[in-house]
């Protein structure tokens, strides 16, 4: 297994486990799974909090820097949000729907 594969597999597993715990708790689901091994502890107590502390931009750059299909040529996503329709003025309860 290459370094990037190792990183992806573990980060995905532990970030997901952390999110499941939070979203589970919010929905009244008890989530078991205390860290059992030293490896569990490293990923749960060091990697996950560090990842969450990183600013969004830095996190995205790090993910983008990893080798993978996202680094090859792909059609660009549609602009977000879409440009407003020229004929329709929507007033979502006093808020401009698109910033």
């Amino acid at each position, binding site marked *: 297994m290459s370094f990037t594969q190792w990183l992806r597999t573990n980060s995905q597993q532990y970030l*997901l486990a952390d999110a499941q715990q939070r979203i589970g708790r919010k929905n009244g689901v008890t989530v078991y799974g205390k860290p059992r091994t030293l490896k569990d502890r490293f990923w749960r107590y060091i990697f996950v909090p560090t990842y*969450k502390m990183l600013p969004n931009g830095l996190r995205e750059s790090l993910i983008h820097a990893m080798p993978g*299909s996202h680094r090859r040529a792909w059609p660009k*996503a549609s602009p977000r949000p879409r440009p407003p329709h020229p004929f329709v003025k929507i007033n*979502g309860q006093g808020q401009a729907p698109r910033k």
Partner: protein
Amino acid sequence: MKIVVIGGGAAGLGAAGAALGVDPSAEMVVYTQFEDVAYSPCGIPFVHGKEIESFDRLFLATKQQYKDQGIDVHYETTVESIDTKRHVIKVQGEGEVRYDKLVLATGWNYRDPNLPGGDLKGIYRVKNIQRAREWDSFLDTVKSAVVVECGLIAVEMVTALVHRGIKVTVVDPGPWPMAEVVDPDIVDPVRAGWAEAGVTTLWGEQVTAFGGNGTLSYVETTAGRIEAELAIIGTRKVPNSDLARAAGIALGGTGGIVVDARMQTSAPDVYAAGDCTEIPHGVSGVPLQGLSGSHAYAQGKTAGINAAGAVREYQPVYVPWAMLAGEWMIGGVSFGETTASAVGMNYVAGTAKGITRARYYPGVKPITVKLLADPDSRCLIGAQIVGGEGVKERADFLAVAVRAGITIDDLATMENVYSPAIGALNEPIQMAALAVQQNFRR
């Protein structure tokens, strides 16, 4: 021109057919390790569950039809290696075979749980239709089964086994079924349905070994021993990319083959498609692997068209999915709350409970829709749905909405069909969008 395709699944056959559509004079050779091509593996759980009476119904075309189309399929034939410099593959029993263009469509395997006793009889990985035929008669003798991890295919198998009157125990280190893709509130009706049907579930537990004398008779877990004659492997899909790796073709962090929008790999004249590849997610850009048969088929067609000399681009994916889970239909698009939280994506969510037909119309079913929007742009970034019907159509529609950059305000003011027998006055998607708007104001 000689086009060689390695793989006879949705991606491989999609590639072969589409390439011949572009260049009918191309010499087209497909290699598969299986006895058949062009059957729908997706139907296997439903034959096991006896909703479909025969495996024969799952075949889409006969071997002769492929021959007549000009596709030369080599069955039960393994490609052993690829020399991308010499444009040659080495085929078991055939030696070296030259290609002008090569399409890799080698698919996926269940992640190997790597457990003691893994070679006992009675451990079933649902995939190949001929093996499924054999297992089907075995199922008649089974009283008790363990499902080892509960991915999407495993969920369908739980339903099938219940229909066969088999006692089922699900053992999964995750906290709920399909916890890698679905939120707990959305899967809750499925869990309740399983409990009612007598399915035992052990969440947060792991299978540690298989036991028996040549044949499985029990499964050891972190919660104790379970007597069972059958174990269904339901672990996550991993790419079958060993052939590509050995040939020096670039793989990504998922282990899938790296491709661009034309499905070109890092090697000249080599394309790849289906579950052996990784494809960027449309919202996050993070590459994903192990999508679905419909993705594999569409990617195969893209690879085939490009290999044959025309141009087609595949798009980043938003992954609409939907399936039957017990008495419920469940599905989603792009992110749920769990997956959005996992990647650290900010979102505002809103959920609405609605109905699928007019409240007085026979057969009306409940449906729950949850939408997630990006707090800055207010664009839809994901959805999760569970209901008695109408889940697939909503998932497909919402996938287009995410892809097009539709905002939650567009959805809150959407028009909808009201017709008592097929749709309620209040569209649950619109109601969920209103709930998101409300949560934005909090």
